[in-house]
């Protein structure tokens, strides 16, 4: 059981936690009255959501003419926001699935809330394909259901249809993956609960989990296979989203490197958003011992990697435009950098390509404040990446006669605000009611990656008769 881990690796759980302490630390955040600050923040998020919803209702009533779109720019903020949210939604599943397969122990501290974030992000994303339609009330046309019109089926050649399948599959699988992981922890909360009501609720939520060996066996095999499925899935989702553009004929969209480039970008923005949330959560819920500087640093490393991939992608695009010798392609990129939307392009370039490179400096990589700042910058940058791809490609395509310019209306902005409101409202509710750290998983790695336990490994103390917790206690007394 206590697989040996190199002492050079820094501990993933600090503060010499015992199993029980872990339990208490996590369960505590779900107990008792939330602090006023929580109500304040949640209230704010909810208000933004309400106000934004007015914009949505107005759109539904009047039509999407209330947006800034025109005959040439048929998509702008709607699909920009959609792709942005979907991108953010990639971190969670990536962390829990791919890192699980790669046996990255540091994922245990953050996977739970990262997955939650994924779910909420995908919810926000899902809103846009719905309301961006001219006739949302006919949305059911998209499903291949038998009908009296022939029957007339959807067009399986259309990337938008692929999207529908990709997003819904991704949402479902993430949800299942996340929830099955929650069962043992809900059981823990249940058993920690004093009040009858809490016991009943959390028992229901835990589906009557007891931790029986057979259940654990199934649980393990389930999560392993789900991880196996989710890994190609998470890659496929943004690949398919990128097909919306890559399979088109529009210069600036019609680009074969989009799939890897989009996936990298998604992970990039996803990790940034995870950092934003984690840094707040660990502070507010006092989880510094579980989400350590080590965790932050590991994520920053992923950010450098993906950020650099994105940067290379941008440069490749430019090179290919020139190398293709295709005048429309060339102009599309000339126009991105120097056309009327030059500012958007350079914001994107700075935020996504230049800024993450500072993480090569270890000091900055390990600075919480700086990381937080960077995570915001990167999310802004990634929003602009999508905006640049969509709008600057569309507004000046083949025929100069139909070139136009896009400016958002208040409604566009309101709807984006609504999704932000929705996202944070959901996450804040999650933080107060769900176990934000996967207790069972952390306990499972405590012996190998807990600080005191590692220490003992190095001291070659025989731990035959003591549980990790006790020893930890002993050592603390020594010190």
């Amino acid at each position, binding site marked *: 059981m206590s697989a040996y881990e190199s002492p050079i690796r820094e501990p993933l759980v600090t503060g010499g936690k015992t199993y029980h302490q872990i339990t208490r630390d996590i369960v505590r955040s779900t107990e008792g009255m939330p602090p006023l600050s929580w109500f304040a923040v949640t209230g704010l998020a909810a208000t933004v959501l309400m106000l934004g919803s007015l914009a949505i209702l107005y759109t539904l*009533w*009047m*039509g*999407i*003419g209330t947006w*800034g*779109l*025109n*005959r*040439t720019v*048929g*998509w702008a903020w709607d699909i920009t926001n959609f792709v942005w949210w979907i991108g953010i939604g990639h971190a969670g599943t990536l962390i829990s699935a791919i890192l699980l397969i790669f046996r990255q122990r540091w994922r245990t501290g953050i996977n739970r809330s990262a997955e939650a974030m994924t779910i909420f992000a995908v919810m926000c994303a899902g809103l846009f*394909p719905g309301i*961006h*339609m*001219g*006739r*949302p009330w*006919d*949305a059911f*046309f*998209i499903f291949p259901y038998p009908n009296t*019109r022939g029957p*007339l*089926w*959807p*067009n399986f*050649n*259309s*990337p*938008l*249809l692929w999207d*529908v399948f990709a997003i819904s599959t991704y949402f479902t699988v993430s949800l299942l993956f996340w929830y099955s992981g929650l069962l043992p922890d809900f059981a823990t909360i249940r058993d920690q609960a004093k009040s009858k009501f809490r016991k009943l609720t959390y028992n229901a939520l835990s589906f009557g989990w007891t931790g029986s060996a057979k259940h654990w066996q199934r649980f393990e095999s389930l999560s392993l296979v789900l991880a196996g499925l989710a890994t190609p899935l998470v890659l496929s989702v943004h690949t398919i989203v990128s097909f*919306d553009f890559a*399979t*088109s*004929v*529009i210069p600036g969209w019609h680009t074969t490197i989009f799939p890897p480039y989009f996936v990298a970008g998604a992970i990039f923005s996803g990790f940034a958003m995870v950092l934003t949330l984690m840094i707040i959560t660990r502070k507010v819920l006092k989880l510094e011992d579980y989400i350590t500087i080590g965790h932050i640093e590991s994520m920053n490393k992923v950010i450098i990697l993906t950020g650099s991939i994105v940067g290379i992608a941008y440069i490749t695009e430019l090179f290919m435009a020139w190398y293709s010798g295709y*005048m*429309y392609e*060339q*102009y599309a990129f*000339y126009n991105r950098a120097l056309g*009327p939307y030059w500012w958007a392009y350079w914001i994107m370039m700075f935020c996504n390509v230049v800024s993450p490179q500072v993480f090569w400096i270890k000091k900055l990589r390990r600075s919480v404040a700086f990381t937080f700042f960077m995570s915001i910058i990167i999310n802004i940058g990634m929003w602009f990446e999508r905006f640049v791809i969509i709008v600057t490609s*569309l507004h*000046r*395509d*083949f*025929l*100069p*006669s*139909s*070139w*136009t*310019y896009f*400016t958002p209306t208040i409604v566009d902005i309101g709807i984006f605000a609504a999704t932000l409101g929705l996202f944070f409202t959901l996450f804040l509710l999650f933080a107060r009611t769900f176990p934000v750290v996967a207790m069972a998983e952390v306990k499972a790695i405590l012996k190998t990656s807990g600080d005191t336990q590692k220490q003992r490994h190095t001291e070659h103390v025989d731990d035959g008769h003591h549980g990790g917790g006790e020893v930890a206690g002993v050592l603390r007394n020594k010190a």
Partner: protein
Amino acid sequence: MADKKYWKGLEEINHASTPKKTADEFPDELPVISELGKADALASNRRDFLKMMGFSVTAATLAASCEMPVRKSIPYLVKPDEITPGVANYYASTYAEGGDYCSVLVKTREGRPIKIEGNKLSKISKGGSSAAVQASVLSLYDNYRLQGPHIEGEEVSWRNADEAIKGELESIAARGGKIRILSSTILSPSTKQVIKDFIAKYPTTKHVVYDAVSCSGLLSANEVTLGKRVIPNYRFDVADVIVSVGADFLGTWISPVEFAAQYSSRRKVTKTNKRMNRHVQIESYFSLSGTNADKRIMVKPSEENAALLHLYNAVASKTGGQSVTAGQLDDQHKAEITKTADELVAARGKSIVVCGINDVNAQLITNAINQLLGNYGTTIDLVNYSKQRKGDDAAMNELVSELSTVDALIVLDANPVYNYPDVDNKLKQGLEKVKLTVSMNLKKDETSEFCKYLCPTPHYLEAWNDAMPKNGFYSITQPTISPLFRTRSAAESLLKWSGTDVSYYDYIRDFWKQNIFPKQSRFSSFDVLWDRAVHDGVLDIEVSGELTVGNIDAGSAGAALAKKSGGEGMDLVVYEKVATRDGKFSDNPWLQELPDPVSKVAWDNYACVSKKTAEKLGLKTALNKINESVGTETDLLTVSANGYEITIPALVQPGTPDDTLAIAVGYGRDIAGKTGFIGQNVYPFLKYQSSGISNIVSGVTATHVAGKTFKIAQTQMHHSIHDGLNERRIVKETTLAEYNENPFAGNEDRAFVQKHLKSLYPPYENLKNGHHWEMAIDLNTCIGCSACVVACTAENNVPVVGKDEVRRSREMHWLRIDRYFAGDETNPSVIYQPMLCQHCDNAPCENVCPVSATNHSSEGLNQMAYNRCFGTRYCANNCPYKVRRFNWFDYLGADSFFKGTIFDNDKDPHEMADDLTRMVLNPDVTVRSRGVMEKCSFCAQRIQEGKLKAKKEARPLKETDIVPACQDACPTNAITFGDINNEKTEVFKIANDERGFKVLEEIHTLPSITYLTKVRNKDKSEA
């Protein structure tokens, strides 16, 4: 009924052996028996229950379902045998508005006119039409029309109005008071006769003819030269060299539809006919003709006279004419004009010079040039002279000055209060003094506001009339719908008031019998002639008697003209827009929505300035607009001259001379009906000078309005075909010289492109058999007049979105005319490209629609299923030609709720969805609802109609069976449509022409529209 006993015969009752009905006919266990048995015992039974339930459920459903508006549809009691519901009828008729003439076919459905088409039988309009003609059907259903006669704003009966007016007229006549009839040009000989009769009845009457944009200079000049106040019959179709000095003969001058047809008939170059006419335009603003010219000489408005004089001298020096003193002109222009003169002289007798300057001397000089070139009798026919402009500025001026002493003024289809340069308010003050004022017009207008009596006239589609646009060419206007309102044609009113109680129809018939029947020999009986005339809409009769050209005193004319040439400071040139013309129809939403071919601006007039002038005036926003091409924001200018001042948006328009403002008339109507008040009125800038109202004003001051900008509704921003990196190969052009050497000239790259077209998939075989619809558009004969755009709007129920939406680039036109500039920035050459759905066989839009709402028909049509579309707009994004149009709002009130409340969620700024206006909708084409994508369908409904027609007649499809609206409207036959799989069709030939190319062929969308390279008649030096 159960106890009632039925018996077949006595046997049955008497012999017990015969089976008992109830006993054996049905075995007992069958429930029905018991039911019958119980029937009277039970109040209700299972069936009743079912009935009750069925009823109540249905009732509940109906009650619960949302309330539907009640639409009564009343069947014919006795069906008129010519009307078959669902089948269109066509009636020949005539569009004659203020001298504009077009012979038309009126398409009616279930008895209502819905579309105007050209009449191929007419030797004048040759089946062509103009934007205004196409849009005229909409004015029929205008909810702002007068609905009955009025006396001082009170609606009255015709009888009362007649009595009152007649009474007043008689009393005035009795005491010898002045009676004046003021009308615009009247083409109807009968109406003219009516007026003569009226004058006979009231001898103190004078008939003053006045055109807002008049040719009175030309008429007076011809009075001198030809001895008759007429316009000669210009024959652009026989001219090799055409020189126009400020005359927009393709867009607005006298008879553009006719001239365009003649002009373009000489520009259809093919391998066999490699000759085309040469067109030189000398002008001071960018007119439609100017954009089509092979050579455009751009002069300041005040230099036009000088330019004309130089042209005269240059011609005279080579043809032995006397030279005259010419005004100042810079050497470059002189050189160009001299060169032009050489071309003219070289083409002696086969050239033509026209002049748009409304000045008798200018016109005399023009006549002199034509005389020196010997064009009279060849390119300028003097037999079938034209009567399409009769306006007499001098007479009008006289009327205005004597108006205060006039007792009765009958205004017939004229609107001087709006369009007469009434600088010192003489007109308005005079009008107030006139005792009897009668307005005979379709609607209220600025003038009718001053009139005591309003006697509304019917729309031309509602009444009988006739026309004689040219000597020997007659045509008939026949009603295609009974008058919608209590209106009466002006002629009929005049007849009534002059005491002849005869219907105008009988009057016309009688007039034709007396005056036209005797002049011809083709028809033995008048009834045959009449029926034929009504059926064909036109009647041509041989006329003789050529006008003789007297000798012209060019010297004095030149001297007088030279004085007027050259002006200091800024010039203003006032012009007519191709669509809205003199402003009479500027309240027609279709015409306002139509972007001007040159500026691409809709819904406004504006001051065109050159880039240099813009810099001089400090119009930063306007300049930024063209440099950055961002948004539609532009600067405002304050323009003042002749004591009149307006503030108007500025537009940097290439092709405008420096220190020049070009502003269109026809805007700033106070009473504008559907469109509301738009633009600024510039008529008041003009001034009556010795011989006429010139459209050129010198010494204008223009100042930039600081800190204020204006959003202009421009559908195409200032992009040249060169995007800053490359020359885009979207439109192709060459010169005649190059074309003659190599028929592929300008189109050389096509072979390369075609060689490299590769596809992952095999070609779609079934498109090669059966029909495959394709279109061919000749960029060489397309003059950009935009008649097709309005025709398409009318045919396909394309919504009008209004100024605000056009500003947001949301116009809905399925067919647009792309205008590209090329070459020199100050005086560029222009190329027009009609752009519509290309019906690609590898359509990018089809692949991306998630719900199969757009897909490919087996006949190669890219079809839209509107009710399947839910509006993701992916197709529009993925369309390389950007021809797809999206219903951002509910523009036609198709599915909006709470009309008139704050919850009203439709977008109908110009009342296009009100019940009367909706009558213009084409029942064969779906009215699209909000959130639906739409685009050109190649007039699928017409294709279907044509196929069915051929099928019914059990014969193969003829090319003439299917004519899309745009092709039908085109005055220059630039558009050809047909089946590419049939090698005998015209479209097949054109598609395989050396000049043929497809737009963006290299992206392998396989478009179904072939464009033909534009050929400019330039020599090497100019090219």
